[in-house]
């Protein structure tokens, strides 16, 4: 099942990135939609974000959670049939949900666009995921619950809470519903959901992956286990408050905005505690770099994790946000996290995991090295292009002339962005080609082989 989920994740990463490249090309050549609604930016962009976050991201997290929870608890999965249901039903939801987005079904909430029938299906699958995961933890043979399970557990609980609250809506047709919340309350609930989806899925979930697979890669324990637990609780406590920074200078109370800003700044401490822990763990395992091409991905992902978790709180400061908000700087920030952190750590994990799942050596170290440099070039170019575009937009939109009128028109500003968008397209292609190389490399590694069946290793010391 873990091998299948790895395969699904790679498939969705290619589909999602291809959609991203297409919408990036549409921003350079707007007629690329050929007048067809399903090819329009408004529909493909949602397909891109949903497939990448929920198709690629969740399939990768579900697979690695199912793998690591068995290893760390020394027992097989609780209710394996239910686990198979989660794994397969999730792919069906992503496939049909993606098609529904192309058909124009859209709930209108960012990162929660899927309509109510899918929301109900997601709830059922997610509760099944929780039953399997926590059921496995409940029957564990080791008393201590390893830190990666705390992060995966937080992912499951918090995403369930966010999804159920934010998806409350009144259906009026199969394809349309209206949010139960109205006005500013709707915005607050939406960004409580949106920001914590970033927090507990794209940050916390992938930290679960880091805390299990980094020590495995490095073949040594995490540098400070105590620090990892302190970071977990500080992260969990502070992240949940930070959502209102998406609503600066909007129709929500000033104190709510300020609270969101302050809690976003507080968040830097637990985020960087994990960064220090990761860097120091890998620093002692330098000799592994000779034999493990995947470790480079993890090292680089930590660098971008550091950037994204610093940049986010900085952009939450109101005097920065006044310039950065609604510009491509935000898109650059999101992608430094999504490409630089989430994708790279997942790729590094897959290069480690899949050869072990099928009991073979990686097909080509050289292809993995090419992938590394293409990914690094892609993410750097992307971030630089969006920094240039975003800061220019912020400056131009706010520029006043001698009599206090806006100096530049919105249309002219956007027209001048085409070169940056072309550069972003090149960056996306570089990253995508790297991912295709990985898919080929892993396919050739697994081709014709069956999955290795492992039995839980004996518990050293006193079993629980």
């Amino acid at each position, binding site marked *: 099942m873990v091998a299948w989920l790895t395969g699904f994740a790679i498939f969705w990463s290619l589909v999602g990135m291809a959609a991203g490249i297409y919408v990036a090309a549409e921003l350079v050549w707007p007629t690329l939609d050929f007048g067809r609604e399903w090819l329009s930016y408004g529909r493909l962009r949602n397909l891109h974000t949903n497939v990448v976050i929920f198709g690629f991201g969740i399939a990768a997290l579900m697979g690695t959670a199912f793998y690591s929870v068995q290893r760390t608890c020394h027992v097989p999965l609780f209710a394996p049939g239910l686990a198979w249901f989660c794994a397969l039903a999730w792919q069906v939801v992503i496939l049909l949900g993606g098609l529904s987005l192309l058909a124009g079904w859209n709930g209108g909430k960012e990162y929660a666009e899927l309509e109510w029938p899918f929301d109900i299906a997601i709830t059922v699958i997610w509760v099944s995921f929780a039953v399997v995961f926590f059921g496995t933890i409940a029957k564990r043979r080791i008393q201590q619950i390893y830190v990666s399970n705390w992060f995966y557990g937080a992912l499951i609980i918090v995403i369930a809470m966010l999804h159920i609250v934010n998806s409350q809506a009144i259906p009026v047709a199969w394809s349309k519903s209206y949010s139960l919340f109205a006005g500013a309350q709707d915005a607050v609930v939406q960004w409580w959901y949106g920001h914590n989806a970033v927090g507990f899925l794209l940050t916390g979930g992938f930290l679960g992956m880091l805390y299990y697979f980094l020590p495995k890669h490095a073949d040594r324990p995490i540098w400070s286990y105590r620090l990892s637990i302190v970071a977990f609780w500080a992260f969990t406590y502070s992240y949940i408050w930070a959502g209102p920074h998406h609503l600066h200078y909007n129709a929500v109370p000033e104190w709510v905005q300020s609270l969101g800003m302050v809690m976003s700044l507080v968040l830097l401490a637990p985020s960087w505690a994990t*960064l220090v822990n990761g*860097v*120091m763990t*890998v*620093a002692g395992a*330098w*000799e592994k*770099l*000779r034999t493990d091409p995947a470790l*480079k991905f993890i*090292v*680089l992902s*930590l*660098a*971008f994790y*550091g*950037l994204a978790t*610093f*940049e986010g709180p*900085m*952009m939450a*400061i109101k*005097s*920065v946000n*006044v*310039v*950065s908000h609604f510009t491509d700087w935000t898109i650059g920030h999101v992608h*430094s996290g999504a490409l630089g952190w989430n994708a790279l750590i997942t790729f590094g994990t897959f290069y480690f995991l899949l050869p072990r799942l099928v009991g073979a050596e990686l097909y080509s170290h050289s292809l993995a090295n090419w992938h590394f440099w293409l990914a690094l*070039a892609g993410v*750097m*170019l992307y971030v*630089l*292009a969006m*920094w*240039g575009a975003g*800061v*220019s937009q*912020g*400056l*131009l939109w*706010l*520029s*006043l002339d001698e009599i*206090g009128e*806006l*100096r*530049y*028109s919105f249309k*002219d*500003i956007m*027209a*001048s*962005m085409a*070169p*940056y968008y072309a*550069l972003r397209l090149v960056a996306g292609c570089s990253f995508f080609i790297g991912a295709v190389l990985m898919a080929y490399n892993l396919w050739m590694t697994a081709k014709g082989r069956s999955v290795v069946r492992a039995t839980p290793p004996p518990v050293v010391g006193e079993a629980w």
Partner: protein
Amino acid sequence: MDALLTPWRFARLITRPAEAGARLAADTPDTPAVLLRLVIPLSLIPPLFAYIGGATFGWRLGGGEPLYISPAGLTLISLAYFIALVAGFLSTAVVARWMADTYGARLEFGSHLSFVVLVGMPVILASLGHLVPHVFINLLVMIPALIWSLYLLYRCLPAALGTSQERGMLMASSLVAYLLVASVSLLGITVVLWSGGIGPNLGV
């Protein structure tokens, strides 16, 4: 070593990465000498180009008329640019020296500072693009320079700072993390200054 401590010699070294690391490793330069003979003169170049370009043509950000800043404003911004560059070289060298224990690199601060100058050299030379003050053109010029700087960082660090290839790779990646954070901090500080009324006339 003194003969090496000239901007011209460093500019030539970046075209020979294979020997650059070994050349830096061969000596232990004094920190004040690196500061006075390399860091300060090189840090004057980008602000000077930016001043000349900005005063002559105005900055084009796209979207219409170029943005002209008064001579006093340009002087202030160029001065801030110079200070940011010197602070950038010094802080990166401090961070590299701080990491040296962890990655088994040499401990002399002067060596770290001269290595940081080597890595920054392509970007300093690419600031020639400031004479054509268009943001996108400068971005296009800076990208190959940054790629070359990154290449020098990874390629030359093990030899220049006396550590193994593998530990050098990890140290270089840690420095990339610091440089990314430092770059975005600079961006943030600049925007805060704009929001506070220093710089262009913004409606905030």
